[in-house]
C-alpha cells in the first residue's frame, strides 16, 4: 500500500516560508494590544449585511481575539474552524522554523489529494458554516 505522506528535502522557498511563519506567529502574539485598535476599521461582512446569514468566515476576527485573550471556549464557539486554524498557525509558528532548522525534510501530501480527504475538507467547511448559522 502506498504511504499517504512522503518525506522530501525542503526547498529554499519552503525554508523561507517556515521562518516567515514563525515571525508572523510571533508578531500576531506580540502585537496583541494593537489588534483591538484596528478592528473598528475592518469592513463588516458583506454577505451577512446583504443576506442576514453569516458567511463561512464570520466570527473569525472575534475568535482570534478571544483566543489571544485566553478565552478558549469563547474562541471555539465563535468559529470552530478558525479556532483550529489559529491554534495550528500559532503552534506551527513555533514548530516550523525549528523543524526547518533542525531537520531537512518535510512531509508531502499526495497530489492530487485522495477524494476522501477532499470531500472531508468540504464537509468540514460546511459543518462549520452550519454551526455559525445556528450559533451566531
Amino acid at each position: 500500500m502506498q504511504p499517504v505522506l512522503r518525506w522530501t528535502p525542503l526547498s529554499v522557498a519552503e525554508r523561507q516560508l517556515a521562518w516567515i511563519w514563525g515571525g508572523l506567529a510571533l508578531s500576531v502574539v506580540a502585537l496583541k494590544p494593537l489588534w483591538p485598535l484596528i478592528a473598528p476599521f475592518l469592513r463588516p461582512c458583506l454577505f451577512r449585511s446583504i443576506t442576514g446569514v453569516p458567511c463561512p468566515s464570520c466570527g473569525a476576527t472575534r475568535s482570534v481575539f478571544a483566543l489571544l485573550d485566553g478565552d478558549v471556549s469563547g474562541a471555539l464557539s465563535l468559529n470552530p474552524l478558525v479556532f483550529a486554524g489559529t491554534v495550528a498557525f500559532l503552534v506551527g509558528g513555533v514548530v516550523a522554523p525549528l523543524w526547518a532548522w533542525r531537520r531537512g525534510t518535510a512531509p508531502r501530501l499526495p497530489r492530487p489529494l485522495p477524494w476522501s480527504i477532499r470531500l472531508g475538507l468540504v464537509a468540514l467547511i460546511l459543518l462549520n458554516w452550519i454551526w455559525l448559522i445556528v450559533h451566531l
Partner: protein
Amino acid sequence: MTEDTLIPPPLPEPPSTAPTPGALPWEEPSIGRVEGLFRTIGLFVTRPDDAFSRLAPAGLGRPFVYALIMAWVELAAGMAYWAAAQSPFMVMGFPELQDALAEAAVGTGVMVAIGVGLFVLMPLFLVIGLAIHTCILHLMLLIVGEGRGGIETTARVICYSHTADLANLVPLCGGLLSLVWFAALQIIGIARAHRCSYGKAALAVILPVLLCCSCLAITLSFFGAALYGALAGR
C-alpha cells in the same frame, strides 16, 4: 601535419550580463529596480499569461516587495481620493460652513495620521493578509485536486496578482475594477504556475463564493418551501 601553434587558444567567454531570456524583469538582477518594476507591471497588464509563465522557481522576497509596492500605491491612491473629497479646502469660501471647516480639518488630521500609520504597518498587514489568502486559495486548490507547484507557488502568484491594486488609481469604479482584475490575474497565474487547466484554476479562485452562493440558494429554497407550505396550509 601539425596545427599552427602560434595561434593562442580562444579565451573563455566573459560571464554574460544580459538579462536571462524568460525571467520576469523584476526578478532579473541585471535590470535596474525601477525599470524592472515598470516593465513587470507592463507585462502583467498586457500579457499576464506570459508574465506568470516567467515566474522564478523559488524565492518569496522579491514577489513580496512587489506586492508591498502595489499595496502602498493603493493606500496612497485611497488617501489622495479621500483627501480630495473631504479636504477642508472643499468647504472654504462658504462662510456658512465655517463649523464644518474646523471639523473637516480635525478629520483630515486624524485621517493623515491613520494613513501614515497604515503606511508604516503595511508590510505586517500585507504578510498577514497574504498568509491567510495563500492558505485559503491553496486549500481550495487541494480540494479541486491541484496545487502541484506547492504553497510557495500559490504565494508568488498572489503577490504578483496584486498588480490589480493599481486599478484603485481609477476614481469611483477603481475598487470594483481591481476586484475583478485581481480574480482574473489569480486564475491566469494559478493555471500557468501550477500547470493546471483554466477551469480548475477558476474553480479554486471562485469556490468560496460558489460555496456561499449555493448554500444561500439551498437556505432560501428551504425558507421558500416553508413559506409556501405555511401559505398553502392557511
